[in-house]
């Protein structure tokens, strides 16, 4: 069965260890939420899985294991990660505008991702799938004219066009209004239903009920707890949950 497994992953910047022990598993079609306070190492864990850390030495310990289409990858060196990036592991960024090339049209960027995936379809079709009512117009536009929600949907379209087997979604709903958030989550759920495993990094537990298959809690660079729903958290996750409940008014 297809799965993405991180085992006792360690990440360091210089002499500082930023992620001590990240252990989690994402199966095909699953949405695994990785939650935790800011600075707990969620984003670094996701980036480390792709071998894309912006500092050295970066990934220093543990194992990344990806099983897909009957093959097992345990990337060690940059060349191994290269073989995984894109086709096997994809990334959806928090800052969608930053993740799009400012000087190329949305359509050109979707098309480029499609070509990498071996597709020859039109970008408008992918843009329509993420809910744009006027995909032809969006395809002609540059990222800076899009609203935050539109940019995130455009970035989602680029990620979908690449057709990765696993998607690492790094707070893709942060800073968006609730209706756009719901739309993004619905699209991600549909992607998962088609068999893609999603690691969904967030600090907002309110998004998770009915969306995430499992919740993994990270604290100070360690994965410390795992539960089927946020309500079932008891340890470190409980503090996060209580804080969320005080804001959300007991809706969880």
């Amino acid at each position, binding site marked *: 069965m297809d799965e993405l497994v991180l085992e006792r992953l360690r990440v360091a910047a210089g002499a500082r260890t930023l992620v001590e022990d990240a252990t989690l598993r994402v199966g095909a079609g699953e949405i695994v939420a990785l939650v935790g306070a800011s600075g707990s190492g969620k984003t670094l864990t996701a980036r480390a899985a792709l071998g*894309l850390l912006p500092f050295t030495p970066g990934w220093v310990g543990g194992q990344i294991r990806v099983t897909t289409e009957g093959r097992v990858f345990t990337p060690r060196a940059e060349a191994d990660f290269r073989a995984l*990036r894109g086709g096997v592991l*994809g*990334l959806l*960024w928090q800052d969608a505008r930053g*993740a*799009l090339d400012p*000087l190329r049209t949305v359509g050109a960027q979707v098309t480029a991702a499609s070509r990498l995936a071996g597709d020859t379809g039109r970008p408008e079709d992918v843009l329509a799938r993420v809910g744009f009512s006027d995909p032809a117009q969006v395809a002609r536009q*540059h990222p800076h004219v899009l609203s935050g929600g539109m940019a995130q949907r455009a*970035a989602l379209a680029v990620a979908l066009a690449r057709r990765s087997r696993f998607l690492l979604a790094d707070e893709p709903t942060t800073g968006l209004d609730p209706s756009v958030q719901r739309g993004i989550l619905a699209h991600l759920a549909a992607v998962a239903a088609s068999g893609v495993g999603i690691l969904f990094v967030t600090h907002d537990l309110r998004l998770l009920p009915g969306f995430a298959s499992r919740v993994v809690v990270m604290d100070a660079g360690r994965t410390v707890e795992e539960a089927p729903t946020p309500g079932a958290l008891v340890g470190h996750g409980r503090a996060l949950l209580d804080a969320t409940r005080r804001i959300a008014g007991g809706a969880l």
Partner: protein
Amino acid sequence: MSAAAALREGAPEAPAAARPAAVVGALLLGGVLLAWLFALVVPYDVVADVNPARASLRPSAAHWLGTDHLGRDVAWRLVVGSRAFVLPGLGAALLAGLLGVAGGAVAGWLGGPVATAVRYAGNVVASIPRLVFVLLAGAVFGPDVHVLAVATGLACAPAVAEALHARIEALRRAEFVLALQAHGVPDARILAWHLVWVNGRGLVARNVLATFAFFLVVETTLSYLGGFGVQEPTPSWGNMLAFEFGIPDGNPWAWAAPGLAVWAACLGAALLGQDLGLREGAADG
């Protein structure tokens, strides 16, 4: 249309009418290139045109810009004078562009000691004023036009490299570059296509056009001063200026026209370069 809709429809490529600087610049440079092509295909004998009987005529239908004090047609000499700088100027621009793009791209992408080495090499060249650098090269290797072109290209390469280096360094860690890497796009393609071409070509174009204009200024200066540049009777805009300026009762167009031509060509390069460079810079913000 609502303001928001107008914003969303903001055309990525403004129509030509909204880019007057680019249009004027392109027309001026296009005129220079046309003159050069014309001079290539239509023969003009620079010696046989001498005719004292029609010296220093004012502009007329027969001689659009009049004649110089040897009776040679000024318009013809202006057209033929473009040969003194167009091809070597393009060569200098190409050399500056190639060296600058290679150095700037590699330094900006790799950073670290490579960037330090490239920047140091560029600073060594740039520490000598460009005109002095070109004159030195001419003095050492002979005042051949090829030497001047290569020296100009070398003198202008650091500016191209420095500008592109800064641009690529700034974008190297941009999220969209990481996103492309996450998509499995090879680094070489990200650097060559996404950074240098998509995000850096306007900047490079501006510096390359400036190199072309600088060669024109170098050539004009040298042939105006005599000795180093193109020698009479072969016309260049610089020696036409020097040859006719201050002639008693001369045709003022015989020196004003080449002077204006130098000014117009440099203005064209500056306007077009500014438009190409600025439009790209605006998209960074």
